[in-house]
Structure formats: C-alpha cells, structure tokens
C-alpha cells in the first residue's frame, strides 16, 4: 500500500476527528465513538465484499437485495419451526447461493457485472416481495438480538465481528495465493490465465464472498432493528462503493486493500455521525459528504498514486 494514500486518509480522519471534538462536546464520548463503530460495522461488512468484486474489475449491485432476502429467509424458516442457529445458517447459505449464482453468471457468461448484478438484485428483491409481500416481518427470539444489540467487554458485538472480518480479509488478500490471484485477475486476467490461474473460479470467489458478507450484514441489521425487511441494506449500497473507492480501490480493478476500504468506511461513518452532532441538517449532510467524496476521488486519481499492494522500487 502506498504511504502517501494512507497518510491522506488518516490525515482526513484525524482532521475530522479533531474538528468534531472541538465543535461538539458529545462527539468524543466513549458512547458516541462506540455508536460510530456500530454504524460502521453494518455497511463495513458489505463494503469488504464490494471491494473484492471491484478488485476483480467488477461491481456487486446485489448486496442490498441479498441483505434483505437473507433476513427474510431467516425469519421464514424460523417461523417454519427451525431452531435459531439452523435458521441463521440457512440464511447464510441462501446468501452464499445468491453470490454463487451472480458469480457464475459474471464469470462464465461474461455479461458486464454492472448490468448483471443490477438484474440479479431485482430478481432477489422480487423473491423477497413474493415471500414477505412487502411487509416487515418481526418475531425473532430474544437471543437473535445479540449480534445487533449485544455487547462483549463493553464493545458492541457487531464491532467485534466487523473487526474480525477486516483482519481476515487483510490476511487472506496479503498472505495467501488466493489473494495474489485476486490482484492478478484484476490487473490482467489474460496474463493470470496464461500463468495457470483458473480465472473464472477466482472471479466467482469474489462474488460468492461478497454475497456471503452481504448475508452476514443482513443478519446484523435485522438483529439490530428487530425485524426482517427486503430493503434492509438499500441505503448502504452506494455507500459501500463510495467507501471502497474513497479507500483507494481502483474501479478498473487490481488495486485496493481492506485497510484502505476500512479507512473509507470510517471516514464516511464519522462524517455522518459528526455532522449530526454539530447540528447540520441531514439535507446539507448529504451535500457535504458528496463534496468530500468528489474531492478525495479527484485527489486519488490525479495527484497521488492509488493504493497498491505491491511495493515499487525507489
């Protein structure tokens, strides 16, 4: 990863932190910081999957629909009598399956991911509608609320989960052959293939993981709001892309890192939280976030080299 980029993002983060701490006395409180991490976790988990698909020169517009459908599957099978752990497992399997189909079509058919995942998301949302008829479904058992509302050692459970996923993703991408292949395929699929890489499998793996992570986010979110809804993740989808790109993921693939995306997620979450505390109306908030994004993206693309996993000489 290029230092200049990390420095830029960390500086932005620090600047925002300092400003909000001065402007609002509540911002720096432990409670508020933890609530930021709580908010981060949900769309952060989705962003990690989104980043993966962008790394292999694609994009995954199904994440919000997978998120919603997973929650609906879980509550449906639970109502059908399945115990909670089995129900959650069923939901995650459904998410995995959705990711697999998306990945299969993208990798094997060569349909542009933007188009295909958009269509798939409509399909998944359609299935959700059929099952829940557009209603929010509630009636989870008490224990289900732990992931979205519980705490471990005073820190929200979902924050632990998100941290674990970021670390896992970092380790996988940096230290395993699979990670190497993800970057190789994103950079030059042909050279990757000619080096003995099964390109379709690698591309599929990115979408499968993205689907699974969207499912995990669905579990967390439905647990927090105590109901399953088809539009659970819909407000996060564009934010996921924004966080990944803000964190230096190249939209043409092959460049980006979990650390960068993590910083992107943090900045976006802190920004919306901090602006709330400072008392900026939500309408202007959107504007400010937009301006920040545009600025950082321009700086990233033109003035500074973007995140790169490989080291360069000199």
């Amino acid at each position, binding site marked *: 990863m290029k230092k200049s980029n990390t420095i830029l993002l960390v500086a932005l983060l620090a600047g925002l932190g300092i400003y909000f701490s001065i402007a609002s006395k509540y911002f720096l409180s432990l409670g508020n910081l933890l609530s930021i991490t709580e908010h981060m976790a949900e769309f952060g988990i989705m962003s990690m999957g989104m980043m993966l698909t962008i790394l292999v020169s694609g994009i995954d517009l199904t994440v919000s629909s997978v998120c919603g459908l997973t929650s609906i599957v879980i509550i449906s099978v639970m109502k059908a009598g399945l115990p909670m752990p089995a129900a959650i497992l069923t939901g995650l399997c459904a998410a995995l399956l959705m990711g697999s189909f998306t990945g299969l079509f993208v990798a094997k058919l060569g349909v542009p991911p933007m188009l295909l995942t958009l269509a798939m998301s409509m399909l998944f949302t359609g299935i959700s509608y059929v099952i829940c008829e557009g209603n929010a479904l509630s009636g989870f058992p008490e224990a289900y609320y732990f992931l979205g509302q519980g705490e471990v050692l005073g820190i929200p459970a979902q924050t632990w989960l998100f941290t674990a996923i970021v670390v896992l993703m970092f380790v996988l991408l940096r230290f395993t052959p699979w990670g190497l292949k993800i970057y*190789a395929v994103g*950079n030059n699929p042909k050279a990757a293939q000619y080096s003995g890489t099964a390109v379709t499998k690698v591309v599929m793996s990115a979408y499968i993981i993205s689907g699974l992570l969207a499912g995990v986010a669905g579990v967390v979110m439905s647990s927090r709001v105590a109901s399953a809804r088809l539009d659970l993740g819909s407000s996060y989808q564009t934010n996921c892309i924004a966080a990944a790109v803000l964190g230096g993921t190249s939209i043409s693939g092959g460049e980006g890192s979990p650390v960068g995306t993590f910083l992107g997620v943090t900045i976006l979450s802190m920004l919306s939280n901090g602006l709330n505390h400072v008392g900026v109306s939500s309408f202007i908030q959107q504007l400010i976030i937009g301006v920040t994004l545009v600025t950082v993206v321009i700086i990233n693309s033109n003035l500074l080299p973007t995140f790169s996993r490989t080291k360069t000489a000199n």
Partner: protein
Amino acid sequence: MAQDYFLSLENISKTFPGVKALDQVQLHIRPGEVHALLGENGAGKSTLIKVMSGVYKPDEGGRMEICGEPVKFNDINESIQKGVSVIYQDLCLFPNLTVAENLCIGKDISRKGWIQWKEYDQMAKETLKRLNVEIPIYEKLGNLSIARQQLVAIARAIAFEARLIVMDEPTASLSRSEVEVLFEIIRKLKKDGISVLFISHKLDEVMAISDRMTVLRDGTFVGSKPVSEVTEQEIIHMMVGRNIEYIKLNETSNATERVVAEVSHISKKGHFKDISFSVKEGEILGITGLVGAGRTEVMKSLFGLLPPDEGKIWLDGNLVQLKGTQDAKRHGISFVPEDRQTESLVMEFDVHDNVNLVNYERFRSKLGFLNRKKLMSMTGDMMEQMDVRPRVPERKVREFSGGNQQKIVIGKWLSSNPKLLLVDEPTYGVDIGSKIEIHKLLRRLAAEGMAIIVVSSELQEVLTLTDRILVMRKGRLVAELHANSATQEKIMEYALPQGKREEIK
C-alpha cells in the same frame, strides 16, 4: 543541401532522468523516399519517432527542419499540421466507428456547428480512392481485418495531408500477401512524393521496400546508406556492432527415447484438424507454417486454453484432460506466449509476485499461507540465472525492458521445473543479441532433459534451433522434417497454400 530533404534532424539528443535515450542522432528523409529506421530493441527508434511527432521535446542544441525551415513541435497536432503522421503498431483508431468516421475524425467539417455528413463521406471516398483501395466506408472499422484497418490508418494520414508517414512495425501482424498489398500502397505513396519512414525487425522486408536506411545503436547514430549498397549481413553488423549469424545449435540432438508428450488426432473446429505428434525428453520440436496455419492454436490446446473437440493427449504415458491452464500447469506444462505485454506478465506486479503466481504451491504452508522468505530467495536465484537486469525483484515488471521481461517470463516458468515447455515465437520483437542468448538457453534446457516445443514463423530460427520440424498448413499437419536435412525452400514447399503434402505416419 538541407532543402533536398523533407525532414532533416541534426544532433538530436534526448535525456531522461538517468538515461540518455538519444545522443546526437541525425536523420535525413528525402521527399518520396522510403527510409528504413533500424536498430535493436532499446536503440532509440521509438524515442526518435516521438521526438519527430512532438510527443517528446528534444534536448537543447539539436536542429529539426522541415523543407529547410527550422521547426519545434509542442504537441502532436503541430507535427501533424506540418505533415508528419505516425501510424503506431496498435493503430490508434476507433473500432466502433465507421471507416468514414475514422478517416475524418479530428477534421473540422462543420457548418454553424452541424456536422456535414455528406462532405465527410465524400472526403472519405476520395481519400480511399487516392490509395486505390476498396473499403466500404460505412463498415465498422472493428469488422475489418487488421491489414485493412492499417490501410484506413494510412488513408487517415493522407486525409490529413501527411508528407511523411512513419510506420512502426507495420508488418508485424500481417500475412505475406497482406504485406504485398501494403508494399503496393507504399510504392504508390512514393510516386505521389510522400515519404515513408519504415520501421521493422524483418530485414528481408526492409531490403525489399526501402531506398535508404539509417541505423541506430544504443541511442547513437551509426550510419545512413542506400539499401542497394549494403547486404543483410552488413546491416546486422551495423545494428549490433558485431557480426552475428544464426549459429547452428542443433548438430547433435539430446533427445532420449522417453516420450514426454504425445498428441493423437486432436481437432478443434475452425482451428485445426487431426493433429498427431509426440515430443521426447531432451528434444526441441519446431512447429512452423504461415501465420494462421493453426500453430499457436495447437499450443493453446496443449496448455488447456483451447481444449480440443476430439483426440487425446498423453503426458508421461498418462491420458490427461486439459480443461484449463491450471490443469496444464499441474501436469508440468509451461507456456511462453508470443505477447509479453498482454499475455505473460502482470505488469503492475513486482517480479516476486509474478513468479509467485506460477509457483505458489511450493511456498504454501500447511495453513495455506505464503512463505515469502523462500519465495524471495527463489526469485533472486531466477533473476541471477536468467541474468535479468536490474536485479531488483521488488521492481514492478512494467519498469523492465522488453528483453528483460521476456527473461522474467521464461524464468518464472523454469522455476516451476516444467516437463514440457511450449514457446510461441521465442524471439519475436527481440534484438539479435538476445535472440542468440535465448536460443542457447533453450538448447541448454533440452540438454538437461526438458521437452520443448517451439512455434516460429522464422525459418532460420527453426532450422538452427530445433531437432525436428513439423510444418502446418491451413490447420493441418503436412510434413515432418529433420532439421539437419531441411532447408528454407523445402519448408516453404509444404507451408504454402498450394504446396506439397507428405503423409505422416
């Protein structure tokens, strides 16, 4: 007299940080002459073209004149206005637009902001007529063959009233008959007083079409001569500074009796039909034929890129299914493709990761993590063995020169200790010095027991490097010759479309 020349470059130097790419180079091109610019890779040809076309600004102290008038180009548009057009290898055209649009784009034919389509079409037609070529102007460019697209690129230069057309390796992707068409056009340009600067690695073509030539070596000017006064040998001598002939490396064969790979009756619809051959341990098998005869496709089948519809492939006596490159790699097959830039290397990766991508199985711990320490020592060994320069494994591959990139490609595969090495055009676009090095390396690998299949269009290469030669024509295997008794003429007899056919057992 400077006025005798259309373009005259004197004492042109170009310094990049740390490198002097051009040092006091001169080049004089007369109106209506075909001038060849020659030199090995890295001799400074591309830099010189970029100076001529305004991409680079030369260092102070040189002089550039057009028709005797001093000029200075700040960008490409200025050079085009002065009549200098460059046709790069990748043509820089728009495949999704029509021929007419491609010809006229950049020309301002509008009235009150509205495009005058009729005038566009008219101009396109006239330009193509001037070249005497028939290309439908409403056809999408992308639907034309590369050769026809190239003619459009030339026509485009004409439409912009070029007085000098620079052609960078124009024949690289053309078949023999297409080259003839191109030469016909070049002769026509010549008659119209338009100069052509012709850049090619193929000396026979240079000899056939050029009037004069200029040779560069290591960024310096070696000399300019009329082509009629020099021989190919003399040109090579000027390019490399020493006499190099193809060295016959295949006097004795290292082939043993053990068959490493055997291919029996494989076919792939639209590519090749009923191909059978085998290659032994320590043997170099050459496959030659005209471009498009299906040679590369057979290689791709052996590497799992183009699984055959029917037929069988045995490796070490075992029947194998090669459905993807990962299967081929697992069975110990390596493939060095023709195009380094797009097919062989991940340019944004450093050398470590490129080597790793092929060899990661050997550096994986039980838990599936990569052992970087082991990898690093292997990359270092490989770079030393292959003499890759500079020896900086952390450097991105894109920052190495072409010859060194080729060494990295071969090296990364050798690190995986393959049983069977497939090499497609091993010395394409490689300078003559490195050519010999690569040939010697391949012979050494064969002597160590590797089975190697070399696909090459260059008959001299096949004749001096390989042990046995297979000739393909139109997707069929038509002859098997022994390298020591074969000649160029004999190979061509089989390779040409109406040629002979020998029954192969």
